[in-house]
């Protein structure tokens, strides 16, 4: 007996009761669609977070001061409060490393900025040219610092977009003089906005590091050193190397802290993966309930068609024939549900991303998972009614009214 003929018979049986078949399938449709939508939301969230973190710069490693105040004593400070990082450490890292593409020290404080009547309170960063490379910041207008400006601690500043709007409104900020605290500085560039949320670069301004250290803050200590590894592959090696160099230089692992972007990324990915798993798990309960719906209807169908089963058996259908027939009907229901569910899942997750503004990612894996789960549910919940049908006694079945 050819498979497609059994399919034809099954299709005929299902179309004899279209509304009931549709309602049964609905359970699977909703289940599959729910799984796909939920997983796509989870994966969308994951992608979003990963891209936000990646926006901080590729292959980024950050060295920050540890808890202890260097040399001066006075007990334990807050994390990151130790004054241990200076230009000397930067030089030491630059010379000693074999895996780094760029080393960018950073010193920062918050300060009031003024231009004519307008003022704003924002973070002022003292940085080198490399900083922009490492963080992957580009200019919307103007230029970066020149070597001369960096060396001479010139009063030049590159501003973020929000600052430009706050201070200059629609005026062109290039060439204008603003006051950072009490120091005058000329705006030479405006940054292209990059990143969102916690890795935002729009509400901050950047001056040459020497300008910040000597003219603005009066400190030689750095807040952090950003370094960029040559590639993704050497990140672990670079972290180990930095640890060694810093330990050689500072002599105490408590004095510094090295954070690796990849680590943060892994942690976050893990969190959102759990989240996705949870959403998918909840949605698959819907799928399970749909499967029970199939079993229910198939059982009703077996009872209803007892007479038909009797006739078929009298005409020479074996148990296997009857089993196949009912199993394929159940499978057909769940497959149809699977197909429509996948389609609905596509539409649904697009709707979610349009209406709620969440990014959603439909992965082939999620579709495959939902679909094969639907098929498995169909087999699992179809097998009992089918066995029941196959096991019917032909005489009882024939006499059944």
């Amino acid at each position: 007996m050819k498979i497609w003929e059994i399919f034809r018979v099954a299709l005929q049986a299902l179309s004899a009761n279209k509304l009931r078949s549709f309602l049964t399938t609905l359970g699977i449709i909703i289940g599959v669609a729910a799984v796909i939508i939920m997983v796509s939301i989870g994966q969308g969230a994951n992608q979003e977070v990963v891209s936000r973190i990646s926006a901080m710069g590729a292959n980024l490693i950050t060295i920050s001061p540890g808890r202890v105040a260097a040399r001066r004593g006075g007990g334990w400070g807050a994390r990151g409060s130790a004054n241990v990082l200076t230009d000397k450490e930067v030089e030491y890292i630059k010379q000693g490393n074999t895996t780094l593409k760029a080393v960018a020290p950073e010193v920062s404080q918050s300060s009031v900025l003024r231009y004519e009547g307008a003022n704003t309170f924002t973070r002022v960063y003292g940085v080198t040219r490399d900083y922009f490379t490492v963080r992957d910041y580009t200019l919307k207008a103007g230029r970066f610092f020149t070597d001369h400006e960096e060396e001479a601690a010139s009063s030049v500043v590159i501003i973020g977009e929000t600052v430009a709007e706050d201070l200059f409104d629609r005026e062109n900020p290039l060439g204008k003089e603003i006051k950072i605290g009490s120091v005058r500085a000329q705006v030479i560039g405006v940054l292209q906005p990059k990143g969102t949320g916690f890795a935002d670069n729009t509400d901050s301004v950047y001056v040459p590091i020497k300008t910040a250290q000597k003219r603005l803050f009066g400190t030689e200590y750095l807040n952090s050193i950003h370094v960029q590894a040559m590639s993704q592959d050497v990140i672990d090696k670079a972290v180990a190397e930095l640890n060694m160099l810093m330990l050689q230089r500072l002599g105490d692992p408590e004095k510094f802290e090295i954070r690796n972007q990849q680590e943060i990324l892994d942690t976050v990915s893990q969190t959102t993966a759990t989240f996705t798993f949870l959403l998918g798990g909840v949605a698959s309960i819907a799928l399970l309930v749909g499967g029970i719906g199939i079993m229910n209807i198939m059982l009703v169908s077996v009872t209803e068609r007892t007479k038909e089963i009797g006739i078929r058996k009298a005409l020479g259908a074996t148990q296997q024939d009857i089993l196949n027939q009912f199993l394929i009907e159940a499978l057909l229901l769940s497959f149809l549900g699977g197909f429509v569910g996948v389609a609905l899942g596509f539409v649904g997750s697009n709707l979610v991303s349009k209406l709620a503004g969440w990014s959603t990612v439909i992965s082939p894996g999620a579709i495959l998972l939902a679909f094969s789960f639907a098929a498995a549910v169909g087999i699992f919940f179809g097998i009992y009614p089918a066995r029941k049908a196959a096991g019917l006694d032909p005489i009882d079945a024939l006499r059944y009214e």
Partner: protein
Amino acid sequence: MHDILGCLDRPTSGEYYLNGKLVSNLTDGELAKVRNRELGFVFQNFNLLSRSTALENVELPLFYRGMSSSQRRKRAVEALRQVGLEERMHHLPNELSGGQRQRVAIARALVGEPSMILADEPTGNLDSKTGIEIMSIFQELHAKGHTILMVTHDNTIAGYAQRVLEFFDGQIKSEAS
């Protein structure tokens, strides 16, 4: 009795030989094969599949035999022609009269070329005129060499048979030829 002869049931005691083969202790699967190849059923209440056309009903035994669809169709059409229903073969059972339905059932019993056609009160649900029609079809088939075993309470119908066994409470009461 009919059920045992139809291989639908097994005897509690005794043996049943069909075509010289002991069938009373076969497995369910083997019995299904015997029903499919050796027997054709005609029931009192027709027992046609209501959602399938006359032709599909007649094809059914061949379907379970694993025959190709073109061959099935050819033989089913031929069987329907024998009972004079070839122009109604695409009708559903509920579009046919009782006599026509029974003729479809006979075609279905016939199509597999069985050793024996088992008829259980084939005229029980029919008026006497159609009953006579059905019986004449049986007579034709018998003339062509088919073995027909019929169960009936109607002495007129029993009169068509070559050999009559009268049962009373499960025991053979008399035999006549």
